[in-house]
Protein backbone atom coordinates (compact mmCIF):
# COMPACT_ATOMS: atom_id res chain seq x y z
CA UNK A 1 0.00 0.00 0.00
CA UNK A 2 1.68 3.17 -1.16
CA UNK A 3 -0.41 5.77 0.56
CA UNK A 4 -2.28 5.45 3.79
CA UNK A 5 -6.02 5.54 3.15
CA UNK A 6 -7.15 5.80 6.74
CA UNK A 7 -6.41 7.36 10.12
CA UNK A 8 -7.43 6.80 13.72
CA UNK A 9 -10.31 9.23 13.44
CA UNK A 10 -12.04 7.66 10.46
CA UNK A 11 -11.36 4.14 11.70
CA UNK A 12 -13.19 5.04 14.90
CA UNK A 13 -16.01 6.66 12.92
CA UNK A 14 -16.26 3.47 10.85
CA UNK A 15 -16.52 1.31 13.97
CA UNK A 16 -19.24 3.57 15.34
CA UNK A 17 -21.18 3.45 12.05
CA UNK A 18 -20.68 7.15 11.44
CA UNK A 19 -19.06 7.05 8.00
CA UNK A 20 -21.03 7.83 4.83
CA UNK A 21 -22.13 4.65 3.05
CA UNK A 22 -19.64 4.88 0.18
CA UNK A 23 -16.73 5.42 2.55
CA UNK A 24 -17.91 2.58 4.80
CA UNK A 25 -18.04 0.23 1.81
CA UNK A 26 -14.51 1.20 0.85
CA UNK A 27 -13.42 0.33 4.39
CA UNK A 28 -15.41 -2.93 4.24
CA UNK A 29 -13.40 -3.93 1.20
CA UNK A 30 -10.08 -2.84 2.72
CA UNK A 31 -10.82 -4.95 5.80
CA UNK A 32 -10.53 -7.99 3.49
CA UNK A 33 -7.92 -6.96 0.98
CA UNK A 34 -5.36 -4.93 2.99
CA UNK A 35 -3.62 -6.61 5.90
CA UNK A 36 -2.29 -3.29 7.14
CA UNK A 37 -5.81 -1.91 7.27
CA UNK A 38 -7.16 -5.03 9.02
CA UNK A 39 -4.45 -4.72 11.68
CA UNK A 40 -5.00 -1.00 12.18
CA UNK A 41 -8.74 -1.61 12.45
CA UNK A 42 -8.18 -4.27 15.11
CA UNK A 43 -6.01 -1.88 17.10
CA UNK A 44 -8.49 0.98 16.72
CA UNK A 45 -11.26 -1.30 17.95
CA UNK A 46 -9.27 -2.36 21.00
CA UNK A 47 -8.47 1.29 21.75
CA UNK A 48 -12.12 2.28 21.38
CA UNK A 49 -13.31 -0.51 23.66
CA UNK A 50 -10.57 0.29 26.20
CA UNK A 51 -11.57 3.95 26.12
CA UNK A 52 -15.17 2.98 26.89
CA UNK A 53 -14.16 0.60 29.68
CA UNK A 54 -11.80 3.19 31.17
CA UNK A 55 -14.46 5.95 31.11
CA UNK A 56 -12.58 7.69 28.32
CA UNK A 57 -15.66 8.30 26.15
CA UNK A 58 -18.14 11.06 26.81
CA UNK A 59 -21.00 13.00 25.24
CA UNK A 60 -22.07 12.10 21.73
CA UNK A 61 -19.28 9.52 21.29
CA UNK A 62 -20.39 7.64 24.39
CA UNK A 63 -24.02 7.70 23.28
CA UNK A 64 -23.04 6.51 19.82
CA UNK A 65 -20.93 3.73 21.31
CA UNK A 66 -23.82 2.52 23.45
CA UNK A 67 -26.38 2.74 20.66
CA UNK A 68 -24.31 1.31 17.83
CA UNK A 69 -21.33 -0.64 19.10
CA UNK A 70 -23.06 -2.34 22.00
CA UNK A 71 -25.92 -3.44 19.75
CA UNK A 72 -24.07 -6.62 18.81
CA UNK A 73 -23.59 -9.59 21.17
CA UNK A 74 -20.13 -10.28 19.75
CA UNK A 75 -19.03 -6.72 20.39
CA UNK A 76 -20.53 -6.82 23.87
CA UNK A 77 -18.38 -9.89 24.47
CA UNK A 78 -15.37 -7.85 23.38
CA UNK A 79 -16.28 -5.16 25.91
CA UNK A 80 -16.70 -7.79 28.63
CA UNK A 81 -13.30 -9.19 27.77
CA UNK A 82 -11.74 -5.72 27.96
CA UNK A 83 -13.35 -5.07 31.37
CA UNK A 84 -12.09 -8.33 32.77
CA UNK A 85 -8.69 -7.93 31.20
CA UNK A 86 -8.40 -4.54 32.89
CA UNK A 87 -9.33 -6.09 36.23
CA UNK A 88 -6.81 -8.85 35.63
CA UNK A 89 -4.03 -6.43 34.68
CA UNK A 90 -4.68 -4.29 37.76
CA UNK A 91 -4.70 -7.37 39.96
CA UNK A 92 -1.35 -8.48 38.57
CA UNK A 93 0.25 -5.32 39.79
CA UNK A 94 2.16 -4.05 36.78
CA UNK A 95 4.63 -1.89 38.74
CA UNK A 96 6.31 -5.15 39.84
CA UNK A 97 7.13 -5.78 36.21
CA UNK A 98 9.08 -2.55 36.04
CA UNK A 99 11.40 -3.93 38.68
CA UNK A 100 12.38 -7.15 36.96
CA UNK A 101 15.44 -5.75 35.27
CA UNK A 102 16.66 -4.17 38.50
CA UNK A 103 17.31 -7.54 40.12
CA UNK A 104 19.60 -8.52 37.29
CA UNK A 105 22.00 -5.63 37.73
CA UNK A 106 23.11 -5.41 41.33
CA UNK A 107 24.77 -2.23 42.47
CA UNK A 108 26.30 -1.23 45.75
CA UNK A 109 26.12 2.18 47.37
CA UNK A 110 29.83 2.70 47.37
CA UNK A 111 30.55 1.30 43.96
CA UNK A 112 32.06 4.47 42.53
CA UNK A 113 34.63 4.92 45.24
CA UNK A 114 36.41 1.72 44.36
CA UNK A 115 37.73 3.27 41.21
CA UNK A 116 39.70 5.92 43.00
CA UNK A 117 41.86 3.22 44.59
CA UNK A 118 42.04 0.99 41.55
CA UNK A 119 42.96 3.73 39.19
CA UNK A 120 45.55 5.34 41.40
CA UNK A 121 47.17 1.91 41.70
CA UNK A 122 47.01 1.50 37.96
CA UNK A 123 48.74 4.82 37.54
CA UNK A 124 51.42 3.79 39.93
CA UNK A 125 51.94 0.54 38.12
CA UNK A 126 52.24 2.38 34.80
CA UNK A 127 50.75 -0.44 32.84
CA UNK A 128 50.68 1.62 29.71
CA UNK A 129 48.33 1.79 26.85
CA UNK A 130 46.80 -1.70 27.20
CA UNK A 131 45.76 -0.95 30.77
CA UNK A 132 44.30 2.39 29.74
CA UNK A 133 42.18 0.60 27.17
CA UNK A 134 40.98 -1.84 29.82
CA UNK A 135 40.20 1.06 32.12
CA UNK A 136 38.14 2.64 29.38
CA UNK A 137 36.12 -0.54 29.12
CA UNK A 138 35.69 -0.63 32.89
CA UNK A 139 34.57 2.98 32.89
CA UNK A 140 32.06 2.14 30.19
CA UNK A 141 30.80 -0.77 32.29
CA UNK A 142 30.54 1.41 35.35
CA UNK A 143 28.63 4.08 33.45
CA UNK A 144 26.29 1.44 32.12
CA UNK A 145 25.53 0.03 35.57
CA UNK A 146 25.18 3.47 37.09
CA UNK A 147 22.80 4.42 34.32
CA UNK A 148 20.75 1.24 34.91
CA UNK A 149 20.52 2.03 38.61
CA UNK A 150 19.25 5.56 37.96
CA UNK A 151 16.90 4.28 35.30
CA UNK A 152 15.42 1.74 37.72
CA UNK A 153 14.92 4.45 40.30
CA UNK A 154 13.16 6.47 37.60
CA UNK A 155 10.96 3.45 36.79
CA UNK A 156 9.99 3.00 40.39
CA UNK A 157 8.93 6.59 40.76
CA UNK A 158 6.98 6.28 37.50
CA UNK A 159 5.16 3.24 38.86
CA UNK A 160 4.54 5.01 42.15
CA UNK A 161 3.10 7.95 40.27
CA UNK A 162 0.81 5.64 38.28
CA UNK A 163 -0.48 4.07 41.48
CA UNK A 164 -1.16 7.49 43.01
CA UNK A 165 -2.96 8.61 39.88
CA UNK A 166 -5.17 5.52 40.03
CA UNK A 167 -5.99 6.17 43.67
CA UNK A 168 -6.77 9.78 42.89
CA UNK A 169 -9.14 8.74 40.10
CA UNK A 170 -10.87 6.16 42.31
CA UNK A 171 -11.39 8.67 45.07
CA UNK A 172 -12.58 11.33 42.66
CA UNK A 173 -15.16 8.87 41.34
CA UNK A 174 -16.30 7.95 44.83
CA UNK A 175 -16.65 11.59 45.79
CA UNK A 176 -18.65 12.34 42.68
CA UNK A 177 -20.97 9.42 43.39
CA UNK A 178 -21.66 10.46 46.95
CA UNK A 179 -22.73 14.07 47.09
CA UNK A 180 -22.20 14.04 50.88
CA UNK A 181 -18.61 12.93 50.58
CA UNK A 182 -16.86 13.00 53.92
CA UNK A 183 -14.30 15.65 54.79
CA UNK A 184 -11.87 12.83 55.53
CA UNK A 185 -11.89 11.64 51.92
CA UNK A 186 -11.47 15.20 50.70
CA UNK A 187 -8.46 15.54 52.97
CA UNK A 188 -7.01 12.26 51.74
CA UNK A 189 -7.52 13.37 48.16
CA UNK A 190 -5.70 16.61 48.93
CA UNK A 191 -2.88 14.62 50.55
CA UNK A 192 -2.62 12.31 47.56
CA UNK A 193 -2.52 15.27 45.21
CA UNK A 194 0.25 16.82 47.25
CA UNK A 195 2.14 13.54 47.24
CA UNK A 196 1.58 13.18 43.52
CA UNK A 197 3.00 16.65 42.94
CA UNK A 198 5.95 15.76 45.14
CA UNK A 199 6.64 12.51 43.29
CA UNK A 200 6.36 14.31 39.96
CA UNK A 201 8.80 16.95 41.17
CA UNK A 202 11.19 14.29 42.48
CA UNK A 203 11.02 12.41 39.23
CA UNK A 204 11.81 15.55 37.28
CA UNK A 205 14.73 16.25 39.60
CA UNK A 206 15.95 12.68 39.25
CA UNK A 207 15.73 12.95 35.50
CA UNK A 208 17.75 16.16 35.53
CA UNK A 209 20.34 14.65 37.88
CA UNK A 210 20.61 11.55 35.67
CA UNK A 211 21.14 13.67 32.58
CA UNK A 212 23.66 15.89 34.31
CA UNK A 213 25.58 12.97 35.80
CA UNK A 214 25.55 11.15 32.51
CA UNK A 215 26.89 14.20 30.69
CA UNK A 216 29.57 14.78 33.31
CA UNK A 217 30.67 11.16 33.25
CA UNK A 218 30.76 11.02 29.48
CA UNK A 219 32.79 14.22 29.31
CA UNK A 220 35.21 13.02 31.98
CA UNK A 221 35.52 9.58 30.45
CA UNK A 222 36.45 11.13 27.11
CA UNK A 223 38.90 13.63 28.57
CA UNK A 224 40.62 11.70 31.33
CA UNK A 225 39.47 8.10 31.42
CA UNK A 226 41.88 6.89 34.09
CA UNK A 227 40.98 9.54 36.65
CA UNK A 228 37.24 9.61 36.00
CA UNK A 229 35.41 8.08 38.95
CA UNK A 230 37.22 9.86 41.72
CA UNK A 231 34.54 9.49 44.37
CA UNK A 232 35.18 9.16 48.05
CA UNK A 233 32.72 6.55 49.35
CA UNK A 234 34.12 3.23 50.62
CA UNK A 235 34.70 0.70 47.82
CA UNK A 236 32.58 -2.46 47.89
CA UNK A 237 31.93 -3.56 44.32
CA UNK A 238 34.30 -3.89 41.39
CA UNK A 239 33.12 -3.52 37.80
CA UNK A 240 34.71 -4.84 34.62
CA UNK A 241 33.72 -5.42 31.04
CA UNK A 242 34.75 -8.26 28.77
CA UNK A 243 34.48 -8.20 24.98
CA UNK A 244 33.56 -11.39 23.06
CA UNK A 245 36.52 -13.79 22.86
CA UNK A 246 38.51 -13.51 19.63
CA UNK A 247 38.82 -16.55 17.42
CA UNK A 248 42.39 -17.83 17.28
CA UNK A 249 43.44 -16.38 20.61
CA UNK A 250 44.49 -12.81 21.36
CA UNK A 251 45.80 -11.47 24.64
CA UNK A 252 44.12 -12.66 27.83
CA UNK A 253 42.11 -9.85 29.48
CA UNK A 254 43.16 -9.09 33.03
CA UNK A 255 41.22 -7.67 35.93
CA UNK A 256 42.44 -6.42 39.26
CA UNK A 257 39.98 -6.96 42.09
CA UNK A 258 40.85 -4.87 45.16
CA UNK A 259 41.08 -6.60 48.52
CA UNK A 260 38.16 -4.69 50.01
CA UNK A 261 35.70 -5.43 47.18
CA UNK A 262 32.69 -7.59 48.19
CA UNK A 263 31.25 -8.17 44.76
CA UNK A 264 32.61 -8.42 41.26
CA UNK A 265 30.27 -7.38 38.44
CA UNK A 266 31.31 -8.21 34.91
CA UNK A 267 29.60 -6.88 31.85
CA UNK A 268 29.80 -9.47 29.07
CA UNK A 269 29.32 -8.32 25.50
CA UNK A 270 27.66 -11.24 23.73
CA UNK A 271 28.19 -12.39 20.18
CA UNK A 272 24.97 -12.29 18.11
CA UNK A 273 22.63 -15.20 18.99
CA UNK A 274 18.91 -15.94 19.23
CA UNK A 275 18.65 -16.61 22.95
CA UNK A 276 16.89 -14.23 25.33
CA UNK A 277 17.77 -15.96 28.61
CA UNK A 278 21.12 -17.20 29.79
CA UNK A 279 22.99 -18.90 32.60
CA UNK A 280 26.59 -18.17 33.48
CA UNK A 281 29.08 -20.35 35.36
CA UNK A 282 32.41 -19.17 36.83
CA UNK A 283 35.04 -21.87 36.32
CA UNK A 284 38.71 -22.31 36.95
CA UNK A 285 40.86 -22.16 33.83
CA UNK A 286 40.92 -25.90 33.23
CA UNK A 287 37.19 -26.09 33.83
CA UNK A 288 37.48 -28.83 36.44
CA UNK A 289 35.81 -26.75 39.14
CA UNK A 290 32.66 -24.67 38.97
CA UNK A 291 32.98 -21.92 41.56
CA UNK A 292 29.65 -20.20 41.04
CA UNK A 293 26.51 -20.42 38.90
CA UNK A 294 24.03 -17.65 38.07
CA UNK A 295 20.25 -17.98 37.91
CA UNK A 296 18.41 -17.29 34.69
CA UNK A 297 19.59 -13.94 33.31
CA UNK A 298 18.07 -11.72 30.67
CA UNK A 299 20.40 -9.94 28.27
CA UNK A 300 20.02 -6.23 27.72
CA UNK A 301 20.00 -4.94 24.17
CA UNK A 302 21.94 -1.84 23.21
CA UNK A 303 21.62 -1.21 19.50
CA UNK A 304 22.61 -4.42 17.78
CA UNK A 305 24.56 -5.73 20.76
CA UNK A 306 23.44 -7.85 23.67
CA UNK A 307 24.90 -7.28 27.11
CA UNK A 308 24.82 -9.61 30.10
CA UNK A 309 25.71 -8.38 33.59
CA UNK A 310 26.90 -11.02 36.07
CA UNK A 311 27.72 -10.42 39.72
CA UNK A 312 29.43 -12.87 42.05
CA UNK A 313 31.26 -12.68 45.38
CA UNK A 314 34.77 -11.23 45.08
CA UNK A 315 36.14 -13.76 47.61
CA UNK A 316 35.84 -16.52 44.97
CA UNK A 317 38.73 -15.07 42.97
CA UNK A 318 42.45 -15.72 43.60
CA UNK A 319 45.39 -14.62 41.45
CA UNK A 320 44.82 -16.99 38.57
CA UNK A 321 42.93 -17.48 35.29
CA UNK A 322 39.18 -18.12 35.20
CA UNK A 323 36.48 -18.51 32.61
CA UNK A 324 32.86 -17.36 32.57
CA UNK A 325 30.93 -19.97 30.60
CA UNK A 326 27.77 -18.46 29.07
CA UNK A 327 24.93 -20.81 28.08
CA UNK A 328 21.75 -19.77 26.26
CA UNK A 329 18.50 -21.29 27.50
CA UNK A 330 16.56 -22.82 24.63
CA UNK A 331 12.79 -23.22 24.21
CA UNK A 332 12.68 -26.46 26.20
CA UNK A 333 14.78 -24.95 29.00
CA UNK A 334 17.84 -26.86 27.82
CA UNK A 335 21.08 -24.85 28.16
CA UNK A 336 23.45 -24.57 25.19
CA UNK A 337 26.98 -23.20 25.59
CA UNK A 338 27.33 -19.91 23.72
CA UNK A 339 30.78 -18.72 24.67
CA UNK A 340 33.64 -18.83 27.23
CA UNK A 341 35.12 -15.57 28.50
CA UNK A 342 38.62 -16.21 29.88
CA UNK A 343 40.22 -13.61 32.12
CA UNK A 344 43.02 -13.42 34.66
CA UNK A 345 42.75 -11.84 38.08
CA UNK A 346 46.09 -10.18 38.78
CA UNK A 347 45.55 -9.17 42.37
Amino acid at each position, binding site marked *: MNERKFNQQNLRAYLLGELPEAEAERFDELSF*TENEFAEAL*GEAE*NDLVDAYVGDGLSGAKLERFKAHYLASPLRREKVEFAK*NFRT*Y*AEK*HNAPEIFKTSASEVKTEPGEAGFFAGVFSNLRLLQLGFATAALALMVTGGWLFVENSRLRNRFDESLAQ*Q*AELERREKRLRDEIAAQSNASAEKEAELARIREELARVEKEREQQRQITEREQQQKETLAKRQPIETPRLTAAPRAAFFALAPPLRGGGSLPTISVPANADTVTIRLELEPNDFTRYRVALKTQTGERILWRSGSLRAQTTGENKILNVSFPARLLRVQTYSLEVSGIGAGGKPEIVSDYFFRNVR
Partner: protein
Amino acid sequence: MQNVEQKKKRTLNAEAFRRFLGWLGDDADADSRSENYLEMRRRLVAYFDRKNCLQPDELADETLNRVARRLDEEGDIESETPAKYCYIVARFVFLESLRGTEKKNVPLDEISRAKSGNLAIAEAKEEEIKEKMLDCLEHCTNQLEAINREIITRYYYGEERIKIENRRRLAEGLGITVNALSIRACRIRDKLEICVKKCVGKK
Protein backbone atom coordinates in the same frame (compact mmCIF):
# COMPACT_ATOMS: atom_id res chain seq x y z
CA MET B 1 -35.37 -22.32 -8.14
CA GLN B 2 -35.29 -25.74 -6.50
CA ASN B 3 -32.02 -26.35 -8.31
CA VAL B 4 -30.49 -23.22 -6.74
CA GLU B 5 -31.59 -24.28 -3.24
CA GLN B 6 -30.13 -27.74 -3.74
CA LYS B 7 -26.88 -26.18 -4.88
CA LYS B 8 -26.77 -24.01 -1.77
CA LYS B 9 -27.28 -26.95 0.55
CA ARG B 10 -24.75 -29.24 -1.12
CA THR B 11 -21.90 -30.01 1.26
CA LEU B 12 -18.28 -29.89 0.23
CA ASN B 13 -16.17 -33.01 -0.01
CA ALA B 14 -12.62 -33.19 1.36
CA GLU B 15 -11.02 -32.71 -2.06
CA ALA B 16 -13.05 -29.57 -2.80
CA PHE B 17 -12.17 -28.13 0.58
CA ARG B 18 -8.46 -28.85 0.01
CA ARG B 19 -8.63 -27.09 -3.35
CA PHE B 20 -10.34 -24.14 -1.69
CA LEU B 21 -7.57 -23.89 0.94
CA GLY B 22 -4.95 -23.95 -1.83
CA TRP B 23 -6.75 -21.19 -3.74
CA LEU B 24 -7.09 -19.00 -0.62
CA GLY B 25 -3.33 -18.80 -0.14
CA ASP B 26 -0.40 -20.30 -1.99
CA ASP B 27 1.45 -21.35 1.18
CA ALA B 28 2.99 -24.77 0.90
CA ASP B 29 2.41 -26.09 4.41
CA ALA B 30 -0.92 -27.18 5.83
CA ASP B 31 -0.64 -25.01 8.96
CA SER B 32 -0.32 -21.79 6.97
CA ARG B 33 -3.25 -22.79 4.78
CA SER B 34 -5.44 -23.45 7.80
CA GLU B 35 -4.34 -20.15 9.28
CA ASN B 36 -5.32 -18.35 6.06
CA TYR B 37 -8.74 -19.98 6.19
CA LEU B 38 -9.28 -19.07 9.85
CA GLU B 39 -8.13 -15.49 9.22
CA MET B 40 -10.57 -15.13 6.31
CA ARG B 41 -13.35 -16.53 8.45
CA ARG B 42 -12.50 -14.09 11.27
CA ARG B 43 -12.64 -11.19 8.81
CA LEU B 44 -15.99 -12.37 7.47
CA VAL B 45 -17.49 -12.74 10.94
CA ALA B 46 -16.24 -9.27 11.86
CA TYR B 47 -17.67 -7.84 8.63
CA PHE B 48 -21.14 -9.30 9.20
CA ASP B 49 -21.00 -8.27 12.82
CA ARG B 50 -20.15 -4.66 11.89
CA LYS B 51 -23.18 -4.79 9.63
CA ASN B 52 -25.23 -5.73 12.71
CA CYS B 53 -26.25 -9.09 11.26
CA LEU B 54 -27.88 -11.36 13.82
CA GLN B 55 -25.89 -14.48 12.93
CA PRO B 56 -22.48 -13.39 11.70
CA ASP B 57 -20.93 -16.86 12.14
CA GLU B 58 -23.51 -18.55 9.95
CA LEU B 59 -23.22 -15.89 7.25
CA ALA B 60 -19.44 -16.22 7.27
CA ASP B 61 -19.73 -20.00 6.77
CA GLU B 62 -22.32 -19.48 4.03
CA THR B 63 -19.92 -17.13 2.22
CA LEU B 64 -17.01 -19.55 2.45
CA ASN B 65 -19.21 -22.41 1.24
CA ARG B 66 -20.38 -20.45 -1.77
CA VAL B 67 -16.86 -19.52 -2.79
CA ALA B 68 -15.62 -23.10 -2.33
CA ARG B 69 -18.56 -24.50 -4.34
CA ARG B 70 -17.92 -22.08 -7.18
CA LEU B 71 -14.28 -23.09 -7.23
CA ASP B 72 -15.26 -26.78 -7.20
CA GLU B 73 -17.64 -26.32 -10.10
CA GLU B 74 -15.52 -24.08 -12.31
CA GLY B 75 -12.01 -25.21 -11.40
CA ASP B 76 -10.78 -21.62 -11.03
CA ILE B 77 -12.08 -18.17 -10.14
CA GLU B 78 -10.88 -15.09 -11.92
CA SER B 79 -10.49 -12.24 -9.49
CA GLU B 80 -7.79 -9.75 -8.45
CA THR B 81 -7.25 -11.65 -5.22
CA PRO B 82 -9.08 -14.37 -3.27
CA ALA B 83 -9.71 -11.83 -0.49
CA LYS B 84 -11.45 -9.45 -2.89
CA TYR B 85 -13.61 -12.23 -4.28
CA CYS B 86 -14.60 -13.32 -0.78
CA TYR B 87 -15.61 -9.73 -0.04
CA ILE B 88 -17.78 -9.55 -3.17
CA VAL B 89 -19.58 -12.78 -2.24
CA ALA B 90 -19.93 -11.61 1.37
CA ARG B 91 -21.65 -8.46 0.14
CA PHE B 92 -24.20 -10.54 -1.76
CA VAL B 93 -24.78 -12.76 1.27
CA PHE B 94 -25.25 -9.64 3.39
CA LEU B 95 -27.81 -8.11 0.99
CA GLU B 96 -29.69 -11.42 0.86
CA SER B 97 -29.70 -11.61 4.65
CA LEU B 98 -31.19 -8.11 4.80
CA ARG B 99 -34.11 -9.26 2.69
CA GLY B 100 -34.54 -12.29 4.96
CA THR B 101 -34.46 -10.18 8.14
CA GLU B 102 -37.15 -7.82 6.86
CA LYS B 103 -39.53 -10.79 6.71
CA LYS B 104 -38.68 -11.94 10.22
CA ASN B 105 -38.80 -8.60 12.08
CA VAL B 106 -40.08 -8.88 15.65
CA PRO B 107 -41.93 -5.91 17.22
CA LEU B 108 -39.70 -4.03 19.70
CA ASP B 109 -42.13 -4.22 22.63
CA GLU B 110 -42.04 -8.03 22.43
CA ILE B 111 -38.28 -7.98 22.73
CA SER B 112 -38.29 -5.62 25.70
CA ARG B 113 -40.99 -7.71 27.45
CA ALA B 114 -38.90 -10.82 27.02
CA LYS B 115 -35.80 -9.02 28.24
CA SER B 116 -37.30 -7.48 31.40
CA GLY B 117 -38.66 -10.84 32.55
CA ASN B 118 -35.20 -12.35 32.51
CA LEU B 119 -33.31 -9.42 34.01
CA ALA B 120 -32.61 -10.94 37.44
CA ILE B 121 -31.48 -14.24 35.92
CA ALA B 122 -29.33 -12.38 33.43
CA GLU B 123 -27.60 -10.37 36.18
CA ALA B 124 -26.78 -13.48 38.20
CA LYS B 125 -25.50 -15.16 35.08
CA GLU B 126 -23.39 -12.12 34.21
CA GLU B 127 -21.64 -12.29 37.58
CA GLU B 128 -20.97 -15.99 37.10
CA ILE B 129 -19.56 -15.39 33.61
CA LYS B 130 -17.34 -12.62 34.93
CA GLU B 131 -15.80 -14.98 37.49
CA LYS B 132 -15.30 -17.66 34.86
CA MET B 133 -13.72 -15.14 32.55
CA LEU B 134 -11.21 -13.98 35.15
CA ASP B 135 -10.24 -17.61 35.83
CA CYS B 136 -9.88 -18.20 32.11
CA LEU B 137 -7.81 -15.05 31.68
CA GLU B 138 -5.42 -16.34 34.30
CA HIS B 139 -5.28 -19.71 32.59
CA CYS B 140 -4.86 -18.34 29.06
CA THR B 141 -2.29 -15.71 30.05
CA ASN B 142 -0.22 -18.42 31.71
CA GLN B 143 -0.29 -20.37 28.47
CA LEU B 144 1.32 -17.52 26.55
CA GLU B 145 5.06 -17.51 25.97
CA ALA B 146 6.80 -15.60 28.74
CA ILE B 147 7.79 -12.73 26.45
CA ASN B 148 4.24 -12.36 25.10
CA ARG B 149 2.85 -12.46 28.63
CA GLU B 150 5.16 -9.65 29.61
CA ILE B 151 4.30 -7.62 26.52
CA ILE B 152 0.54 -7.92 26.96
CA THR B 153 0.60 -7.04 30.66
CA ARG B 154 2.97 -4.13 30.23
CA TYR B 155 1.41 -2.82 27.03
CA TYR B 156 -1.96 -2.17 28.65
CA TYR B 157 -0.57 -0.88 31.91
CA GLY B 158 -1.21 2.69 33.06
CA GLU B 159 -3.29 5.61 31.88
CA GLU B 160 -2.60 8.25 29.27
CA ARG B 161 0.97 9.57 29.41
CA ILE B 162 2.13 6.81 31.76
CA LYS B 163 0.83 4.33 29.23
CA ILE B 164 2.49 6.14 26.33
CA GLU B 165 5.84 6.36 28.13
CA ASN B 166 5.55 2.74 29.20
CA ARG B 167 4.92 1.61 25.61
CA ARG B 168 7.81 3.69 24.30
CA ARG B 169 10.18 2.06 26.77
CA LEU B 170 8.79 -1.41 26.16
CA ALA B 171 9.35 -0.99 22.40
CA GLU B 172 12.85 0.33 23.07
CA GLY B 173 13.61 -2.68 25.27
CA LEU B 174 12.45 -5.06 22.56
CA GLY B 175 14.36 -3.17 19.90
CA ILE B 176 11.26 -2.52 17.77
CA THR B 177 9.19 0.54 16.87
CA VAL B 178 6.10 1.54 18.86
CA ASN B 179 4.03 0.78 15.77
CA ALA B 180 5.42 -2.74 15.49
CA LEU B 181 4.84 -3.20 19.20
CA SER B 182 1.17 -2.19 18.92
CA ILE B 183 0.63 -4.69 16.08
CA ARG B 184 2.28 -7.41 18.17
CA ALA B 185 0.23 -6.52 21.26
CA CYS B 186 -2.97 -6.52 19.21
CA ARG B 187 -2.21 -10.02 17.89
CA ILE B 188 -1.47 -11.33 21.39
CA ARG B 189 -4.69 -9.79 22.66
CA ASP B 190 -6.71 -11.39 19.84
CA LYS B 191 -5.13 -14.74 20.67
CA LEU B 192 -5.94 -14.27 24.34
CA GLU B 193 -9.50 -13.27 23.54
CA ILE B 194 -10.05 -16.40 21.44
CA CYS B 195 -8.54 -18.60 24.16
CA VAL B 196 -10.72 -16.99 26.86
CA LYS B 197 -13.84 -17.40 24.73
CA LYS B 198 -13.12 -21.11 24.24
CA CYS B 199 -12.26 -21.57 27.91
CA VAL B 200 -15.45 -19.85 29.15
CA GLY B 201 -17.48 -21.98 26.74
CA LYS B 202 -15.97 -25.18 28.19
CA LYS B 203 -16.54 -24.27 31.84
